[in-house]
């Protein structure tokens, strides 16, 4: 890190201190391009983006905490935990949604159970996180398949309508997510837990010597990630319908959103605004390509090219500024 001159910080230093600025610049560019392309107007585009982004943001905040741990930590179980939690929640809630809260709690608990198994494998059995969360994901996938096999119900209607309530054309769920993000930011930067997560990502041995109870922090982080994936899975099932592949795109996009947002993929340094930046960027990219009337296949290609391009530019900018 460059030494900070007293009093005034250069523009470059500002970008290093707040790497998420990049993602918001990219969003502004995309938004401008969209406004030029579509006649829906700036507001409509923005409302659409804010309707879809929260599901990704919730998952990505969990992923962000895991990635911040560094040392190869990443949660690959997310795409399977999401449908598992959704099916469990729908099943426990009952056909008329008489046990809705019980269902949601059961779904979230199932996500936390996945996190618990991941942490157990990583901490006790010393299995590398990539393999361990992958194996846990395969277990979760099996649970989802088995639950779905003889299940014809759906998410209770009361939850479905809850995802549709709007204020100023923006769903209330989005506002709830913004409030939650603020909490997550405080948790990451101000709480002892969040600082311990960052310390582990920067240097796990030093964190250990400094008296941080490393295993406990790692366990808590995987529990958090599992719970958030579950919440997002349940809400997404309510919003877009219950299916086994509701989580399938979230593995790629959750990691991409975190990294586009300027969090260091090797861990130790993360930020919450960047997760919103990354999620909105990915969402607007899809909208942009749809507006250009690209087929789904071409949309995928465009998304891939843009992710790589943004990461290369942002990665180089931060590493150059670091030297």
């Amino acid at each position, binding site marked *: 890190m460059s030494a900070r001159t007293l009093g005034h910080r250069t523009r470059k230093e500002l970008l290093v201190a707040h790497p998420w600025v990049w993602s918001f610049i990219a969003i502004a560019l995309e938004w401008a391009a969209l406004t030029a392309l579509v006649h829906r107007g700036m507001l409509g585009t923005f409302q659409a983006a804010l309707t879809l982004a929260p599901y990704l943001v919730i998952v990505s905040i969990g992923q962000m905490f895991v990635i911040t741990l560094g040392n190869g930590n990443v949660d690959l179980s997310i795409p399977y935990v999401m449908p598992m939690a959704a099916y469990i929640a729908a099943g426990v809630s009952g056909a008329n949604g008489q046990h809705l809260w019980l269902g949601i709690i059961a779904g979230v608990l199932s996500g936390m159970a996945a996190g618990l198994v991941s942490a157990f494998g990583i901490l006790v059995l010393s299995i590398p996180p990539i393999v361990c969360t992958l194996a846990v994901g395969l277990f979760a996938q*099996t649970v989802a398949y088995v639950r779905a096999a003889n299940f014809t119900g759906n998410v209770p209607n009361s939850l479905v309508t809850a995802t549709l309530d709007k204020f100023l054309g923006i769903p209330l769920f989005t506002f709830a997510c913004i409030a939650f993000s603020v909490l997550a930011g405080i948790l990451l930067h101000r709480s002892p837990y969040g600082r311990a997560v960052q310390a582990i990502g920067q240097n796990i041995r030093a964190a250990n010597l400094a008296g941080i109870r490393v295993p406990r922090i790692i366990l808590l982080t995987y529990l958090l990630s599992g719970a958030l994936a579950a919440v997002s899975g349940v809400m997404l099932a309510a919003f877009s319908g219950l299916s086994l592949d509701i989580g399938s795109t979230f593995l790629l996009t959750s990691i991409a959103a975190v990294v586009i947002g300027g969090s260091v993929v090797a861990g130790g340094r993360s930020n919450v605004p960047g997760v919103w930046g990354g999620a909105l960027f990915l969402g607007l990219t899809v909208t942009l390509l749809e507006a250009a009337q690209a087929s789904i296949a071409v949309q*995928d290609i465009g998304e891939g090219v843009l992710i790589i391009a943004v990461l290369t530019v942002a990665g180089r900018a931060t590493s150059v500024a670091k030297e």
Partner: protein
Amino acid sequence: MFIWVASLQPDVANYEGITLLFSGAVPLAATAMAEMFVISIGDIDVGIGYFVGLTNAVVAQYMPNHPLGAWGLLVVLVGAYVGMGALIQLGRVPSIVATLGASFIWMGAGLVILPIPGGSAPGWLTRLFNSRPPFVPFPIVAIIVLVVVCGWLTSRYKYGVAIRAMGANAQAVGRNGWSLLRLRMTCFGLAGIFGVIAGFAVTAVADSGAPTSSADYTLLAVAAVILGGAEFSGGFAFPLGAAAGALAISQATSLLTFLNISSNYQGAVVGLILMVVLLGRVLTRSRNR
């Protein structure tokens, strides 16, 4: 694993049975080899499944009627893998992110070529896969060839040895005068070549192209390589182990079928095998220490 399967279903323990049982393992074994090169330098490729799907689409759609164009496209694709290696080295983009982004591109390109599953395997490929070598069924021969070639690449070929060394200690290799850029490009190029071979194998087994049906190979190939004894930190490459891992995983599926267990449980079984093998390795290692 094979003996277990054979004991449940004695019919498989003959020439025909082995051919049928193992032909499904060939694409996974080739994918595992591709993944093995990438993991041996400490990187990971999370897009190889979609890449195999893309090459599968190219082969099935263009190879029977436009062989020259198809070969040209495949060369371009391997070139794209080499370029991805260069990007990771020069742009300091973590491999998990670069390959993740690339996987979108492979998937999209595969769907552009073949929006709905279709196409067919070129005649020579079908003839090759249906050939009946004496005594040893073709899939076994194919896997042995893969292992021998990869074994030569990783332990005899100059670049292969340097790639493995790079996984163990990149700095030392760099100081010895090797270009890390060229090594990483070679490594991803090899991964691309074996990805293409896997694409051929998928086409031959399925006799058609379906760009998204190979998506699972990413995770299964990583699992196979790790089962085969490699370490995520890099520096290790065991072609025989990776092939054995691929066989074990594809056998697990057959086993479920013969045991009359729903294929819904396949994921859990693969996960369980992974956990048990890794647990065993952790236990033996701590005893040796």
